[in-house]
């Protein structure tokens, strides 16, 4: 089914163009940009989770030599507008926020004042001297507490902390329950994560008072949407703001929204008439940037005796934190919409609640729908356990087959060109399930506890505008590109994406090169500057390849068609039939064979720009092409993850003995980059499931403010990750691209958890709460009895 053999540029294992500068220490990250005279900002942050701001005394701070000023929420309110999130979505309360809090703080780390000084060290000295008089309020540090009647309100403008509540039903789940052979219930608790990119947030604002223009340097995944927000909130025209994104040291979803700190920095540059810069420190990043994922799902599934799913119900509650930089239903809704994923389920209902709490606000983190596949495949394993069936067999009986396609999910989402059964079988074969079961049984006799987990993922990758509309989420899914062949024949191209480490430059060059008929080495991508790039929706989800690569490919095809029309004219042909561009040379089909001509792209470019009178009638000078494209409502990749673990019951330690992924992400622009994304996503998923955890105490104090406490896995904890690549192109996208890069997290959480529960099975306990820390596993095992080995160690 693979279509890549037709391609000469797409699919090449072209090394990354970014590597040279990054390996030599010549990358250009935000802090590497020097603007003389730039002032430095440090924020004064709330030490309490919930408190009224009674007064702010900054006299002593202002008196410190080197301090330019100390600014509060009231100051910023004069220069900025509020962020209002009021999409007309049923069940979602509108919310708004000021640039800095004025009346009260809502989480520990909430910024209350902004110190500007000539030097970062001095700014920090001054921040310590700002005295804020707080009147403490009761805090709600869990969604359970937040949703109790009479709970303190996180947002005083809302009737309760339930900021969003949405329900849905397709078919008749009650009737399916009545028919069911068995009804199985399961719980899935995913803890609070944070993105923790190696480079924290930061920005550099440069207001040009003469031109009345703001240049805003910031590592952002979405330069144009950021520019729109920034201009609106500063009451500037979009033509008065240029957003420039340099190299980014990782983002993972944390660098999409316009955050309050960034707005302050921009407003202060304009107010002070000087460049102003801010570098978030690691404590701020871990406590105050953006958090993610904390949610609990419960499923109830009606099944037939053979394990077939008759009906599925989901209850999801997300702990959203204190502020909404995104509509509160933004992440949870997607989980509910795509939950059924690879399985044939017609009767489905969900109830999704989102609660505000006195914690740092949530945002999308690489795989905002991370929990989805764990919930679905964990439910499958619960069915298998209840009915005494082989989990592989239960998957087979429920998995969508090629013959079922296109398959309309109960939520209306349509799956096309996906291969979940094929990835399942590939993973099952590669991990050798029967061989594993034999080793597992033998191990249990010897007091060794192995577990095997499977997780099939259907990853929503490219969100087209129609999906957003259907999901009740505001936003566009379109993307924009231009391709420009310069008079010398050099090829520049641009798109509205901005990479944050994925390695866009080679694969996107390959998309352009394929469409145009040149080599990828000859294409230069210009991204991140809103004056240069066209207005696109930026990098988020898994849209880079389909939306970005697809738009560039289509635009480059348009360019090639034009170039060939010119070539036909120069070659005295009637039209361009039988012409193509390959490696920047025009080729002609003669007697079924492609023969090079003497014409090169450089020749044609020279003519197009410098000899317009030689152009055919009606052809405009120059070779400058642009194109916008709205992808299908949704594209889906699919994968099956298989994970083998060994559990040490005495300590709760886990060792991942083997990890593999069979993944079908359609046409691959660049296999090197795709493999890196697959392995990196799995690693991030495993790190989160095993180690990372944002911890708040009952008063809302963050206990995980350093990288010693917020534990990111190191090289000694991460396994080798084997990849089995399948390539079923999408028939609905340019070049058959599907997108990927988040599914690895979905699969890792699910496969690991299912493996751990397989290892735990003899003890009769189920791990339903992440992270799977040794202590949590010991808490489950303490007092439990193994069917094989009697009383649990330690002995």
């Amino acid at each position, binding site marked *: 089914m693979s279509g890549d053999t037709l391609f000469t540029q797409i699919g090449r294992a072209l090394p990354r163009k970014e590597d040279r500068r990054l390996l030599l220490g010549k990358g250009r990250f935000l802090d590497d940009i020097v603007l003389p005279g730039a002032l430095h900002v440090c924020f004064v942050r709330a030490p309490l989770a919930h408190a009224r701001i009674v007064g702010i005394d900054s006299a002593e701070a202002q008196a410190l030599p080197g301090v330019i000023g100390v600014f509060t929420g009231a100051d910023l309110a004069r220069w900025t507008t509020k962020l209002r999130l009021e999409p007309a979505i049923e069940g979602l309360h509108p919310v708004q926020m000021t640039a800095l809090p004025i009346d009260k703080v809502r989480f520990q780390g909430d910024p209350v004042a902004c110190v500007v000084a000539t030097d*970062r*060290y001095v700014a*920090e*000295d001054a921040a*310590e001297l700002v005295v804020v008089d707080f009147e403490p309020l009761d805090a709600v540090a869990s969604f359970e507490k937040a949703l109790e009647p009479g709970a303190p309100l996180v947002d005083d403008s809302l009737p309760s902390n339930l900021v969003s509540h949405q329900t849905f039903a397709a078919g008749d789940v009650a009737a399916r329950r009545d028919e069911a052979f068995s009804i199985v219930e399961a719980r899935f608790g995913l803890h609070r994560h944070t993105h923790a990119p190696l480079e924290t947030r930061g920005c550099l604002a440069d207001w040009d008072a003469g031109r009345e223009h703001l240049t805003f340097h910031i590592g952002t995944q979405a330069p144009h949407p950021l520019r729109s927000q920034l201009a609106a909130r500063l009451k500037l025209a979009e033509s008065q703001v240029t957003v420039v994104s340099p190299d980014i040291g990782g983002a993972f979803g944390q660098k999409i929204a316009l955050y309050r700190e960034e707005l302050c920095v921009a407003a202060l540059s304009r107010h002070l008439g000087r460049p102003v810069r801010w570098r978030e*420190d*690691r*404590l701020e990043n871990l406590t105050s940037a953006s958090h993610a994922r904390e949610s609990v799902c419960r499923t109830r599934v009606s099944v037939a005796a053979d394990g077939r799913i008759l009906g599925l119900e989901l209850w999801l509650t997300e702990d959203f934190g204190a502020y909404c930089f995104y509509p509160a239903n933004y992440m949870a809704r997607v989980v509910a919409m795509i939950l059924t994923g690879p399985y044939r389920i017609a009767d489905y209902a969900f109830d999704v609640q989102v609660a505000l709490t006195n914690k740092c606000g949530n945002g999308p983190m690489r795989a905002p729908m991370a929990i989805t596949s764990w919930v679905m495949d964990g439910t499958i394993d619960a069915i298998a356990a209840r009915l005494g069936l082989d989990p592989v067999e239960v998957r087979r009986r429920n998995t969508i087959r090629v013959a079922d396609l296109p398959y309309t999910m109960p939520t209306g989402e349509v799956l096309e060109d996906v291969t979940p059964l094929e990835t399942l079988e590939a993973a099952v074969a590669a991990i050798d399930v029967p061989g594993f079961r034999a080793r597992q049984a033998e191990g249990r006799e010897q007091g060794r506890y192995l577990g095997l987990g499977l997780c099939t993922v259907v990853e929503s990758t490219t969100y087209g505008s129609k999906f957003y509309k259907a999901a009740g989420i505001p936003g566009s899914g379109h993307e924009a590109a231009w391709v420009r062949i310069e008079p010398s024949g050099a090829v520049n191209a641009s798109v509205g994406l901005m990479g944050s480490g994925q390695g866009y430059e080679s694969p996107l060059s390959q998309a352009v090169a394929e469409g145009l008929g040149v080599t990828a080495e000859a294409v230069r991508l210009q991204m991140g500057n809103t004056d240069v790039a066209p207005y696109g929706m930026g990098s988020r989800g898994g849209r880079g390849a389909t939306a970005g690569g697809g738009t560039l490919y289509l635009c480059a095809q348009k360019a090639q068609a034009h170039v060939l029309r010119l070539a036909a004219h120069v070659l005295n042909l009637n039209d361009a039939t039988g012409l193509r561009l390959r490696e920047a040379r025009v080729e002609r089909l003669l007697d079924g064979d492609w023969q090079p001509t003497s014409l090169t792209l450089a020749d044609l470019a020279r003519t197009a720009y410098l000899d317009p009178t030689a152009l055919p009638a009606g052809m405009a000078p120059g070779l400058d092409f642009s194109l916008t494209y709205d992808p299908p409502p949704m594209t889906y990749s699919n994968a099956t993850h298989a994970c083998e673990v060994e559990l040490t019951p*005495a*300590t*709760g330690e886990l060792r991942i003995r083997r990890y593999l992924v069979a993944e079908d992400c359609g046409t691959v622009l660049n296999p090197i980059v795709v493999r890196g994304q697959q392995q990196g996503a799995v690693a991030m998923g495993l790190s989160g499931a095993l*180690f990372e955890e944002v*911890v708040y*105490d009952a008063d809302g104090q963050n*206990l995980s403010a*350093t990288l*010693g406490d917020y*534990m990111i*896995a*190191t*090289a*000694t*904890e991460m396994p080798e990750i084997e990849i089995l690549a399948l390539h079923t192109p999408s028939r609905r996208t340019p070049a058959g691209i599907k997108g990927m890069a988040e599914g690895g997290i979905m699969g890792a959480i699910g496969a690991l958890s299912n493996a751990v529960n397989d290892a735990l099975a003899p003890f009769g306990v189920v791990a339903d709460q992440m992270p799977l*820390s*040794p*202590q949590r596993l*010991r*808490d489950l095992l*303490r007092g439990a009895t193994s069917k094989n080995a009697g009383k649990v*160690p*330690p*002995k």
Partner: protein
Amino acid sequence: MKPAPFTYHRPATLDAVLDLLAAHGADAQILAGGQSLGPLLNLRMAMPEHVIDINDLADLGQMRRRDDWFEIGALVRHHAVATSPEGRRCMPLLAAAVGTIGHYAIRQRGTMGGSLVQADPAAQIPLVALALDAEVTIQSRRGVRSVPVADFVLSAMEVALDDDEIVTGLGFPLQSPTQGWSFQNFCRRRGDYALASVAVILDLAEDGTLADLRCCVGGTAPVAQRLADLEAGARGHHPTPAWQRDTAQQIAATVPAEDDSKATEAFRREIVEVLSIRALAEAVKRARVSEVQP
């Protein structure tokens, strides 16, 4: 995360250090490797007026064997101890434990004296120094004194060091070649502070019974714990697997242990039991090997 201002001193001699400590002691911090002090300064959890950099004191960077002692200057880096052939031969427990401190780059800078004075409850050096009956050498303008490490570490991050004093070195009685030993720790990730750790040293008599046992547990309480009663009761026993299991249980049951945000008391005791089994087994194995290959 930038340090508060301080006055920087870089004395060239120990005398000059002692003068500075005499003058500024209460307001001064000694900067050795900086691997613990650095973060505290950057986080402004430490804001000394004076920072006294002792990295020029080459004498404090020496380690050597003298008679039945192994003397290690306060400024000797972890990496040097962990990789020194003589250290690994004469002080295998110490070398093994120090080799697990932090990470490779951290061990290049981190110092023996610094780790000891930092007195983190979960740190390696206070634990193995306790197990090895190390002596701490302390100097000030008032003179030189030597204190058993057991009397030096008072509580978490608290040591018996006056404001005008500096630790100049540690002395370790040599381990005998026939001694069995083991260091075991339980960390969430490589290089993290341990949730619990166990150090065991033992000597076997000719009849295979225990002539001497030393057993210390770290990370469970504000200071590393030496289990003296258990050690005394162990003498004369055959260290059979059954004895090892019983002893490990006894260690886990009796060692002071506390809840904190990293681990519960119950979990810590379970970890201590497992680490103790591993440590006792390894130490016994090493002791027997030593007997046949002196």
